[in-house]
C-alpha cells in the first residue's frame, strides 16, 4: 500500500485529489481562533513586562497580571504576601511566580489544545480537511507528551485562583475603610469567572470523581462530579470569556492607575 503526504490519496482509497470537498466556510473558525489568541498574547506580553499601572493606591485594586507581587521591585502596598524576592530586572515580569503556571495551565488545557492544534498547527484545520503534515505522532513524544501534566498546572491554578480571590476581597478595604466601586465589581466578576474556568477543567472533573468506577459508593464525590460536569460542558466558553475578563480587568486597573479616568464609586 502506497502512502503519500495526504492519507486520502492512498492507492486503495477513492481517487479524489481535492484536499477537501467542504463547501462551507470551514476556515473561519480557525482564523478567528488565531486572531483571538494572538490578540491576547500580544496584550498580555506587553502588560506583563510593562512594570507599572498595576496598582490603584486609593482603592487597592491589583491587576491579576501582577498577582502575587513578591519582588522588591513591587509597590509595597501591592505586595499582599510580602516582598521576599529581590529586585527584578525589566525582562522578568513581577508576577513571575504565577504567570508561567497560568500559561502552562492554559497551554495544556484540553480545550486550548484543540484550538491551537487546529488553528496554528492545522492538525487538522477543520474536520475532513486534510492537514499539511507528512507525519503525525500526536501526543506520544516529547514535547507534546508533556500535555499529560495538565493536572499539576490545574493544582497550581487552584492556588492562584485563591490568591486572586484574596486580592479581590482586599480591594473592598480602601484607604478610607469599606468601599465599593466599579473596579470592585470587575475584579470580583473576573475572579468568579476564573473559578468557573478552573473548576470546569477536565482534569478537575476527573479528580473530583471521574476516576471512580462505583459512583454509588461515593455519593459526595458523585455529586461533586455532576456539578463539575455541568461546568465542564461550558469549558470552551469559560476559556474565551476569561481571556476577555482578564484583559478587561487589567485594562480597567491600568486606566484608573494611570489616571486616564477615575473609578466609578458606588459607596465610599
Amino acid at each position, binding site marked *: 500500500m502506497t502512502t503519500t503526504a495526504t492519507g486520502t490519496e492512498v492507492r486503495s482509497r477513492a481517487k479524489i485529489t481535492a484536499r477537501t470537498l467542504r463547501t462551507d466556510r470551514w476556515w473561519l473558525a480557525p482564523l478567528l481562533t488565531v486572531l483571538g489568541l494572538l490578540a491576547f498574547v500580544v496584550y498580555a506580553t506587553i502588560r506583563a513586562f510593562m512594570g507599572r499601572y498595576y496598582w490603584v493606591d486609593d482603592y487597592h485594586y491589583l491587576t491579576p497580571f501582577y498577582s502575587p507581587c513578591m519582588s522588591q521591585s513591587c509597590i509595597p502596598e501591592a505586595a499582599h504576601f510580602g516582598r521576599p524576592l529581590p529586585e527584578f530586572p525589566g525582562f522578568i515580569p513581577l508576577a513571575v511566580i504565577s504567570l508561567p503556571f497560568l500559561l502552562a495551565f492554559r497551554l495544556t488545557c484540553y480545550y486550548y489544545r484543540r484550538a491551537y492544534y487546529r488553528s496554528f498547527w492545522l492538525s487538522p484545520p477543520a*474536520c475532513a480537511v486534510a492537514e499539511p503534515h507528512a507525519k503525525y505522532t500526536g501526543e506520544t513524544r516529547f514535547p507534546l507528551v508533556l500535555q499529560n501534566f495538565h493536572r499539576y498546572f490545574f493544582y497550581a491554578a487552584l492556588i492562584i485562583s485563591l490568591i486572586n480571590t484574596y486580592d479581590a476581597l482586599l480591594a473592598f478595604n480602601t484607604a478610607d475603610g469599606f468601599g465599593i466601586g466599579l473596579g470592585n465589581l470587575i475584579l470580583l466578576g473576573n475572579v468568579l469567572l476564573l473559578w468557573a474556568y478552573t473548576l470546569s477543567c477536565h482534569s478537575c*472533573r476527573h479528580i473530583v470523581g471521574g*476516576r471512580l468506577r462505583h459512583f454509588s459508593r461515593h455519593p459526595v464525590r458523585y455529586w461533586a462530579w455532576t456539578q463539575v460536569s455541568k461546568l*465542564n460542558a461550558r469549558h470552551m466558553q469559560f476559556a474565551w470569556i476569561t481571556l476577555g475578563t482578564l484583559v478587561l480587568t487589567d485594562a480597567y486597573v491600568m486606566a484608573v492607575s494611570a489616571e486616564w479616568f477615575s473609578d466609578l464609586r458606588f459607596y465610599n
Partner: protein
Amino acid sequence: MSTMRDFRIWRGDETGGALVDYQVEVNEGEVVLDVIHRLQATQAPDLAVRWNCKAGKCGSCSAEINGKPRLMCMTRMSVFAPDETVTVTPLRTFPVIRDLVTDVSYNYEKARQIPAFAPPPDLRPGEYRMMQVDVERSQEFRKCIECFLCQNTCHVTRDHEENKRVFAGPRLFIRAAELDMHPLDTRKDRKEFAQAEQGLGYCNITKCCTEVCPEHIKITDNGIIPMKERVVDRRYDPLVWLGSKIFRRRS
C-alpha cells in the same frame, strides 16, 4: 413540490474513478439517501450504495456529503440551497470497494483486539444489582451505531495511513472507556492497553469525532479525555500511584 437538483456522485473503484454529474428529481421532505435511490432507479442502476434501516440506527449509509462525513439517511435535502450542487463521495479513510461503498473491516479488526468484558469469575447471575449512576456513563457509549463516521473523520488515520497499524480510533476508545468505567469489569490493564496498544496518545483531542457523531455521543469529553486522565493516573501521577500503593485501594 418536486424540483430538479444537481448531484455529483463519485463513481469508480480502487483502480480509479471520478465525480459524475446528475440531475435528479427531489421531493419535499426527502433525504439524500432517497435521492440516491431515485438515481439508482432512474439513471444509474449500477450505482453501489450500502444502506439498511433508513432511520439513522444501522450506521450503514455513511458517506461524505459536500465534504462532511454524514449519514445519507439523516441528511435532509432542505439543508442545501435550491441551486446548490450536492456532492456525495465514499468515506475517504477506508479502501473503496465500488462507488459509495467502502471496506470498513479495519474497524472490526481493531475491535477484536480489545479484551472482552470480564466480570468477576465467581459472580453468579442475579447476585449483583447495579445502580443506575454506576452504569450511565457506559450506557452513553452503548448508543454507538458503528457508522464509523468518527473513524473516518479522525485525521490521525485519515491523513496518515501508516497510523492505522498503531491507532484504534475514537469508536474503539469509547469501547475501552465503556469497559474501564463499568463497575463489574475486573481487568486492571485497560488503561495500559489503551495507551500502548490502541494508540490513545496519538489523539490530539481536536473533537472532530464528536462533531460528526450522529448519536451525539460526547466521544471526546466523556470518553477519550477521561481515558487520557486515567492513563495519567497510572503513568504520570506519582501521587495517585503512591496513594494506591499505601491504601491498596482501587477506585
